[in-house]
């Protein structure tokens, strides 16, 4: 039920004390520049920067590890698909199985998948410093201050909240199925069960979400989140952002224009 990402928002660290608006803006730009990187050496550099920022937050690494698991399930298949499907270029190293000559494994594909993975990890690691170092409503309000359109802010707010509603319902219902000896296999019964399960899950989550919304309305929620947090930019905040921007410039320079390595 409860938003989980801000579990460690009460810790003290240079990242925690950073003005949330500036922090989100700066780290978002950093994330975008990481995604534009096209060399594996720069990608590794980005990973190190992300890790440094993360370790500054003093949030236990295990907390971020859960998020990494999600990345791995999405990006993992690239390691299989890319070496097999990438177009062969002159100078590529190709491996064959001795008797399955039609399957070509391109080493450059493997490298590319590795780079995609490192980039994804570096970006995902930034999520915790971005949103995990302030209370969630303060982060959301910061988005409003940054002139993100209200409809998008609300969408983020509610989808984030409802994910937990959804997961709680999912857990409860799958337990009830297990208790009645359900074991998935390849037959019509399994298919039908999944259909019903999904339908009920959506209906229940919707009903629950509506309850939450009505409870919010009853307490005077009007569509804009109000918090009493004072957003102030101090000199130290500017310094922190400047440092990150310097790093961003470094990344871009190294990735595009540096000829060595």
């Amino acid at each position, binding site marked *: *039920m409860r938003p989980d990402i801000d579990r460690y928002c009460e810790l003290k660290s240079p990242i925690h004390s950073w003005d949330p608006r500036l922090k989100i803006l700066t780290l978002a730009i950093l994330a975008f520049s990481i995604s534009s990187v096209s060399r594996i050496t720069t990608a590794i550099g980005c990973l190190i920067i992300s890790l440094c920022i993360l370790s500054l937050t003093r949030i236990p690494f295990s907390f971020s590890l859960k998020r990494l698991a999600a990345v791995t399930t999405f990006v993992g298949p690239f390691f299989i698909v890319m070496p097999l499907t990438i177009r062969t270029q002159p100078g590529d190293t190709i491996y064959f199985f001795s008797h399955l000559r039609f399957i070509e494994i391109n080493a450059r594909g493997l490298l590319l998948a590795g780079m995609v993975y490192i980039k994804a990890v570096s970006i995902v690691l930034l999520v915790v410093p971005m949103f995990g170092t302030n209370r969630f409503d303060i982060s959301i309000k910061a988005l409003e201050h940054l002139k993100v359109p209200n409809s998008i802010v609300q969408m983020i707010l509610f989808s984030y909240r409802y994910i937990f509603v959804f997961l709680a319902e999912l857990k409860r219902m799958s337990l009830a199925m297990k208790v009645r000896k359900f074991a998935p296999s390849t037959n019509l019964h399994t298919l039908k069960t999944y259909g019903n399960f999904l339908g009920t899950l959506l209906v229940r989550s919707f009903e629950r979400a509506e309850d939450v919304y*009505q409870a919010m309305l009853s307490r005077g929620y009007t569509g804009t989140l109000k918090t009493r947090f004072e957003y102030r930019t101090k000199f130290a905040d500017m310094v922190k952002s400047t440092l990150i921007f310097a790093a961003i410039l470094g990344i871009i320079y190294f990735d595009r224009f540096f000829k060595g390595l």
Partner: protein
Amino acid sequence: MKEKSPIKEKSPIITIKNLHFTYPDGTAALRGIDLTIMEGESIALVGKNGSGKSTLIKHINGIYQPEEGEITVDGLPVTRENLQKIRALVGMVFQDPDSQLFCSTLYDDVAFGPINMDVEDGLVEQRVKNALDKMGLLDLMNRPPHDLSFGQRKRAAMATVLSMQPKIMIFDEPTSNLDPKNEAVMTEILSSLPVTMILISHDLPILYQTCQKVIILNNGRIDQILSMQDFISDITLLRENGLDFTFRCDECCHDPKHHQFLHENL
């Protein structure tokens, strides 16, 4: 009750005239409700499943807009322009505390209402602390609500509404799923609130302890309005509304030995 006695039942605080409501799927939930509730009254709203109890209370704080008829709360018609004022006047405590607690700490949850009502900074803290104190949760202020026990969450949900200092409070099953100890605590709290109250509950003993007046809904209409004393004396009426709970005592109180034991020892 001490705070409550000075409030005389004086002016009407809620008036409902000819209220109709039909759900989008076409089922009529309310079919012409006329009702006046006086300031300081405590009302038990009873009726079978689907008689329209929840639909009715959700009209009083403007979650549902009447499609026909009108509602006035403390002189203000419940319309879109007045919604914010209405919601400050009418506090609503839902049955499931988990739908009402959505912030990271108990303090934030209790402050959510007052902050939305644009209460002054200094006053917010005071109100939150008062509300939590009243519910006996002041020590737990900085804990995440989902860490609390069910009984505490139920009281926390109440604190979130109390901090808005409403004139009217509406409760949907305030004691459901509570163990007897928490039930007793909750009943005591309910009967000491100096507000106009509307209670929906299956639990006759709790209604009996907290309300003076009973409104019976049946099929979207008001069937009867009567005093609590008259209501509980009418066993057929209790039975019709599924509230005859005396069977629970058949065994434990019927056994003369046990009954005597209960009477003497408990």
